[in-house]
């Protein structure tokens, strides 16, 4: 496949003269070819890696949102700290924008791109509208293939089922590939509490596990970290050289430490990207081949699959495979697209089909179409708010635009402020490969949460005052007579200490013209209105 000729190859990378050092090539060349001469790798695909030696003391890693039970997450507060860590913010913004640009190039190489998105959306809508039938078909065929199938209504049930299976097989150690579903259910912490040793086999997810952090992105879970953060972490947890920030060195050290654990594990877990009803098989897409290790090395393979992952036919799969990695990482396909159809000889395979709120969401107008999501992360990569604030600032399993609409379905109060962490610019909707109207759902969540009084009381009172003023022209005119007074009542600006909030972060106040348009019109045209 060649790049579209209308795509400029020498285009500036981003907003700054030089990309962040973590993204800068040692040879000054950018890595964007697809001829196979360089491995396009999930974690390290953005740029070839630069000098390994630290030139300056490392900037400490900003941590995510502070959580206080069900109290609303303060995204603004966490985002502010991320932005204050300027090295991190710059790298994060550029790395993800680079993925967005790669995605765009892939899109331009596929003439039928918009048709594919339409098709993918239609298949998902059809599958969701007929979910019980397709799930039953999937279960029947999977069982016929020799797979044991379990159903979990809640995350807790899922965790118990998995623990039960491990106990049945006397398994004490578990290797697993990345799965957002097991993040949702908190499986890792649950099993650790039961004395099971768990090793995440996806490099980024392993980094996050060692750092006791949630994934900050659904595809590239440690993308908010600088190499210096990883060097520091590995030095502490794996005993590596703290001054060596070379990515190859760090990855190889991790591999050497983890490989024996993988080879000796009692059980393996994967998620699934797609479950095919027609065949009773499921598909896992990775770039590191780690799902294949997790599935094939130990004698027991458990796959946790959200019920919304089912698609009708094998013929439908191609539509999604063509869209998934192109949207996610801007590569034509993941390195591995592994089909699991049944246990290997002498082995056992279990599937846990998990609801965890999905059936309830299916009944939520207009939010049910968020179940179309194939977890590609394209909406995060394109989101200008996500790129500046880092995934952990959302304080939730799912971050970025898709997180804004998924998280309130899990906990309305805790995530009641998240739908406001958006400018409603709509870029997320446009990149979504299954055409979820993400920004419209963010808008709809604001209404939903305001109606249930989940919105901070101050905001609501402000809007009430604004609404009253704006429906009474004479009062409104009196209130905005001067620029100074206008600043206090114009609804976009009425955030209490407006001038302070507006200017504090590095933005000047607007100029104050001598008269409003309204006054000018009256002065020059006479008082002919109905005022």
């Amino acid at each position, binding site marked *: 496949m060649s790049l579209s000729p209308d795509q400029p190859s020498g285009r500036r990378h*981003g907003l700054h003269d030089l990309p962040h050092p973590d993204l800068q090539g040692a040879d000054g060349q950018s890595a964007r070819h697809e001829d196979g001469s360089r491995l396009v790798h999930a974690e390290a695909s953005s740029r070839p890696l630069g000098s390994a030696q630290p030139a300056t003391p490392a900037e400490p890693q900003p941590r995510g949102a502070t959580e206080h039970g069900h109290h609303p997450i303060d995204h603004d507060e966490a985002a502010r700290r991320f932005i204050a860590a300027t090295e991190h913010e710059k790298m994060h913004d550029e790395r993800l924008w680079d993925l967005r640009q790669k995605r765009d190039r892939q899109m331009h190489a596929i003439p039928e791109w918009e048709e594919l998105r339409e098709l993918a959306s239609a298949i998902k809508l059809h599958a969701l509208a007929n979910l019980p039938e397709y799930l039953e078909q999937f279960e029947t065929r999977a069982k016929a293939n020799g797979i044991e199938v379990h159903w979990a209504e809640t995350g807790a049930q899922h965790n118990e089922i998995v623990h039960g299976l491990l106990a049945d097989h006397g398994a004490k150690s578990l290797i697993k590939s990345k799965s957002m579903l097991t993040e949702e259910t908190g499986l890792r912490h649950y099993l650790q509490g039961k004395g099971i040793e768990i090793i995440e086999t996806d490099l980024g997810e392993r980094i996050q596990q060692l750092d006791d952090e949630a994934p900050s992105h659904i595809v590239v879970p440690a993308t908010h970290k600088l190499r210096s953060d990883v060097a520091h972490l590995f030095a502490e947890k794996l005993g590596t050289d703290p001054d060596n920030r070379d990515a190859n060195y760090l990855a190889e050290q991790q591999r050497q430490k983890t490989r024996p654990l993988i080879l000796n594990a009692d059980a393996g877990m994967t998620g699934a990207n797609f479950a095919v009803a027609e065949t009773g098989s499921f598909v896992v897409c990775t770039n590191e081949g780690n799902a294949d290790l997790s599935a094939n090395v130990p004698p027991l393979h458990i796959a946790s699959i959200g019920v919304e992952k089912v698609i009708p036919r094998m013929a439908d799969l191609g539509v999604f495979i063509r869209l998934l990695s192109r949207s996610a990482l801007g590569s034509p396909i993941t390195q591995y697209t592994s089909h699991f159809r049944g246990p290997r000889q002498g082995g056992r395979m279990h599937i846990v089909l998990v609801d965890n709120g999905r059936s309830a969401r299916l009944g939520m107008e207009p939010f049910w179409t968020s179940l179309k999501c194939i977890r590609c992360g394209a909406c995060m990569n394109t989101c200008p708010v996500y790129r500046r604030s880092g995934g952990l600032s959302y304080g939730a399993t799912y971050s970025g635009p898709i997180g804004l609409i998924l998280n309130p379905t899990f906990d309305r109060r805790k995530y009641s402020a998240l*739908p406001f962490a958006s*400018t409603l610019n*709509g870029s997320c909707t*446009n990149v979504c490969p299954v055409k979820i109207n993400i920004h419209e759902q963010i808008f709809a969540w604001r209404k939903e949460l305001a109606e249930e009084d989940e919105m901070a009381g101050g905001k609501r009172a402000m809007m009430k005052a604004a609404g009253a003023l704006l429906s009474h022209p004479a009062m409104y005119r009196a209130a905005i007579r001067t620029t100074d007074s206008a600043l206090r009542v114009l609804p*976009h600006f009425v955030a209490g200490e407006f001038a302070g909030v507006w200017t504090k972060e590095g933005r000047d106040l607007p100029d104050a013209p001598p008269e409003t348009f309204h006054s000018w019109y009256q002065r020059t045209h006479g008082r002919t209105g109905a005022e």
Partner: protein
Amino acid sequence: MRVSLFVPCYIDVFEPRVGIATLELLRRFGIDPTYPLDQTCCGQPMVNAGCHAEAVATEAHFARTFADCDYIVVPSGSCVHQVRYHMTSVEQTEEVRAVRARTYELVEFLHDILKVEAFPWAEFPHKVSYHNNCNALRGIGHGTASELREAPFSKPLDLLRKVKGIEIVEQARPDECCGFGGTFSVFEPAVSVKMGHDKVRDHAQSGAEYVVSADSSCMLHQKGCATRLGLPLKFRHIAEVLNGARA
């Protein structure tokens, strides 16, 4: 053709010359718009904050104020997006639906309704970086967004290219949001300002002397950011450029 002019609150208070330019520009095409003095707001601030009940009276007032005309012309894509797609809090009477359908953003009105071929009086001998308001671009379809695989077009650039001497320069991230986002600008000030700083640096690095947009709200925010950073950017609404502003 009976045309009414809606001048959004920002323009009324902070950029009155944009309202004046819009009025003068329409008059150049033989249209004498009515400016209903009772107008206030489209209701967007409340609705975008999720407060639909609080927007009902304002939306009803808007519909009443602009009921009696063929077209309502607005020099703001953002406000038009609200009226056309989000003015749903108020009861959808025939009058309300008619007002919503008759509301046009200025660029749309010139490009699609008047089908303007030339602006003989206009000359703007400067390097210009065009800022797409997100509601104008992705909401009401001013042009193709970079995320979609569509034949590229841009109504505002079509119009600006008819202006003598103008040179359009391209940003590295041409349709990246500037971070204004209405109440977002004060509820999430750190992210809003960071996005604004990145946006005005992108304009400056593209070699632009002027930033031109069909939305004053974004430019108010960007101007505040550019001034703070000491960037020598100047900001003009597209109505001013098309009406013959030389600088």
